[in-house]
């Protein structure tokens, strides 16, 4: 069985279309990042979170207002997997024990017969939160830098620039998605350590795809020296299309399974991976290569005897 064999789509002249799509996505993402903006999880903002199981189903909005009335703090309550489990979050710091007792007592007294039981707590003090936030930023920037370096060494600077732009494009769109929908989804889309790990994984994965295409482009550039670069790139993409779609396909299957039945804890994480891998595949084909071609045409390498690494 084969799909996408011997295709000869003209990827590169559909430049305009793909630039348009990417442009729109990026614009929406950037606007979303400004408003409503990203919601930081308690990892990075500090606060306390409880997972509470109850005998009876309690609507989350009612629970939030009951808790808010009782304490004067803002509580965010979401369903966690099923209607008898709630994720209760607040930016309030302080003694986790006292807060826990307050939460349990309030729910018990406001909702008869609920007999709430706390199944999990997570509490982060302000110092640790700011530490983690710093680390996360360093991590992401560091990873991008390392990748840049690696591609630069393996290929050349045009490829490196194209790779980093593509990765930035992917990361911004995924974050934009989180910003746009965090109030809408029934599960949490807050940015915490797991999401940062997902972003880094997306970076690693997207670069995979991109490298495979780059590798082909380079190989064909050597083989078909007289062909215009754009055509070579096109040919390379077409021949790797099958592989790119397949690998993305199987990985997406795996991540989709994770999202659907992998449990509540990993919902945000697996959604990030899902979107990120899809966007990463798209960008490897429609964003990375056109950039390489454009850079190459503008800054053509000096004519010289062909060496192994262009």
């Amino acid at each position, binding site marked *: *069985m084969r799909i996408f064999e011997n295709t000869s789509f003209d990827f590169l002249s559909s430049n305009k279309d793909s630039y348009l799509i990417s442009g729109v996505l990026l614009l929406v993402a950037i606007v979303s990042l400004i408003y409503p903006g990203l919601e930081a999880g308690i990892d990075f903002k500090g606060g306390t979170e409880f997972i509470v199981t109850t005998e009876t189903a309690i609507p989350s909005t009612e629970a939030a207002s009951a808790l808010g009335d009782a304490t004067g703090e803002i509580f965010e309550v979401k369903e966690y997997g099923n209607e008898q489990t709630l994720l209760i979050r607040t930016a309030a710091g302080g003694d986790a024990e006292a807060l826990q007792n307050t939460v349990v007592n309030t729910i018990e007294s406001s909702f008869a017969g609920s007999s709430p039981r706390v199944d999990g707590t*997570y509490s982060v003090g302000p*110092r640790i939160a700011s530490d983690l936030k710093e680390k996360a930023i360093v991590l992401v920037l560091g990873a991008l830098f390392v990748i840049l370096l690696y591609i630069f060494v393996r290929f050349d600077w045009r490829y490196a620039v194209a790779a980093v732009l593509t990765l930035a494009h992917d990361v911004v769109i995924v974050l934009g998605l989180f910003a746009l929908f965090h109030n809408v989804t029934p599960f949490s889309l807050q940015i915490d350590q797991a999401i940062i790990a997902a972003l880094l*994984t997306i970076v690693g994965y997207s670069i995979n795809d991109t*490298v495979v295409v780059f590798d082909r482009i380079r190989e064909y550039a050597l083989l078909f020296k007289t062909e215009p670069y754009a055509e070579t790139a096109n040919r390379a993409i077409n021949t790797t299309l099958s592989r790119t779609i*397949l690998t993305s396909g199987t990985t997406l299957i795996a991540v989709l399974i994770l999202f659907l039945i992998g449990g509540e804890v990993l919902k945000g994480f697996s959604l990030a991976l899902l979107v990120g891998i899809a966007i990463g595949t798209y960008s490897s084909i429609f964003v990375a290569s056109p950039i390489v071609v454009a850079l190459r045409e503008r800054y053509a390498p000096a004519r010289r005897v062909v060496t192994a690494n262009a």
Partner: protein
Amino acid sequence: MQGTGFKLFAVGALLFISLWQLFPTIQNSLNNRDLAAMDPAEREAYEAENADDLQATSEEALKLGLDLQGGMHVTLEVGTGALLRELAGNRTDDTFDAALASATEASVTSDQDFVTLFADAIEDERAGTRLARYFRNADADITARSENDAVIAYLQEEVEEALVRAEEIIRQRIDRFGVTEPLIQRQGTSRIVVELPGVDDEDRVRELLKGTAQLTFHLAPPTAEIQQAATNLFAYYENGGEALEADTTATTDSDTTATEVASADADTADVLDLGDITAGGDEAAEAGGNPLAAVLQRIQVDPSSNSPIVGQVAESDTAEVSRLLAAPGAQRLIPPGVDFLFTAGPDAGVTADGEGVHYLVAVNERVELQGEVITDAGPDFDPYTNAPQVSITMDGVGASRWSQITGANRNKPVVIVLDNLVYTFPTINERIPNGRTQITGNFSRQEVDDIVTVLKSGALPAPVSIVEERTVGPSLGEASIRAGTRALLVGFLLVCVFMAIYYRGAGLVANVALLLNVLFIFGVLASFGATLTLPGMAGILLTIGMAVDANVLIFERIREEMESGKTLKAAVDGGFAKALSAIADANITTFLIGVILFSFGVGPIQGFAVTLMAGILTSLFTALVVTRLIIDYLVQERGVKVAFG
């Protein structure tokens, strides 16, 4: 076919090692299953007999992260500020206080250690101040003439020592708690990380970790004085908290209808209806007028009983009472040298809602005897009531002082305070000459054990606060394991099915390689003693999806080669060779990401990074070596026309 023998050997060796490493894990889960099936008596007997074996097996088994097996993760921070204050003793002044406050604020965002921040803050507050003004220590050569640098170095050393001692003490406390494989580790310049798998009694653990174990013995002020102060306080809040002008000849027993308490210690378990506290007929003539009366129920005591009790409070109201008592106007009404403290436990009973009620007790601030004199502590039982109690022994100095105190204060209460909470306030019946005493007070067996633990492991050098904590209850952990395992199985199956359909014969070969791949990943994890977390399982699933990639690259190349007319064998050789560079490049970058995540992440993220890295290595191996072996074998030895789809 070069190197086939070697390749076969490599595969065989890896397989063997993986199974060997995984054996304890399998055995452990079988053990657990068997144990669960036995009835309690049988189980205890079996556990006693085979304790060592069971322990060894469970230690060598693949460790599950806290998010899968449940447990607590706590990050403690040693109160360096408080330590500095203690070191300064009574040399502190306003500059010191201000500098300490601003250093504490700065420490939230700064990376520098606290001592440096404090030194800078002092400089900011009052330039040119010599630190030796506040800190002296003859043993460490810190005198009035010591330079700031020397003092800073000395302070940093003290902080370091305190951290080491704190870690030791915490380790001791945890050891006595009886957790299997706890993790206690220093982090940075002032933090200690504690991980307790399988524990979910958060409150108990928090108390155990935070308690500074300052045990002190106090006497109480005369009952009449206490009652007068209490009356004044209630009157103060009756009038909305304004300062009382003239003499406070407030009302006495006659016009109140509050409860009478016959004996000093509480063994009557009253059932309080919280409604009584607000509407009850105390000094508050109209309902809702007196904020103090709303939360604190006054208890009138018979002056001859020498009871130090002021009133009783429901647990959730204790914070409010503290706040009201801390108001400057209220503080003025409390006699100097007297403190009002709550009892540690719900000694006064329970409310109708089941909430604990604590006594508010008046205590002389002056410390009659320090906890340091205690040489030993142990659990004991009251010979008459069999109630659990703590039995303590004192050293010579302590014993003679104790003898003095008990001799001079017969029929008066002695209040035993631990970490600013009153544990018990028994009346002294007779002189105790030998320094052996029991601390009694409605303790459960568990509470007695905890008190003994805290007393024996010693006082923490500085107060410790919990800055981060994560608790996963067992049901949450189980849900995660179930979800993770299910996702892994389903994902694996789907990918296998897909490979079989798309690549046919070769796809089946790839599936065998995939199976070995997963086995090897677990083997690698087990051999490195790594911990499996939920993100770790996600990492394995991701690896399964990506492992296909290497195979795809190879098979696609083989197809291309075949199309360009080469024979099957030549196509296979060519395919593997040409795909190599692309495979290497692609996997190296993901591996690099894994390295970065591993070095900077903590806990579950590290688990993810580990499985990602292990997965890449194993999938490279299985795709290049295992798949090759099988296909070569089929093509060359058996002449099978392996279909590549």
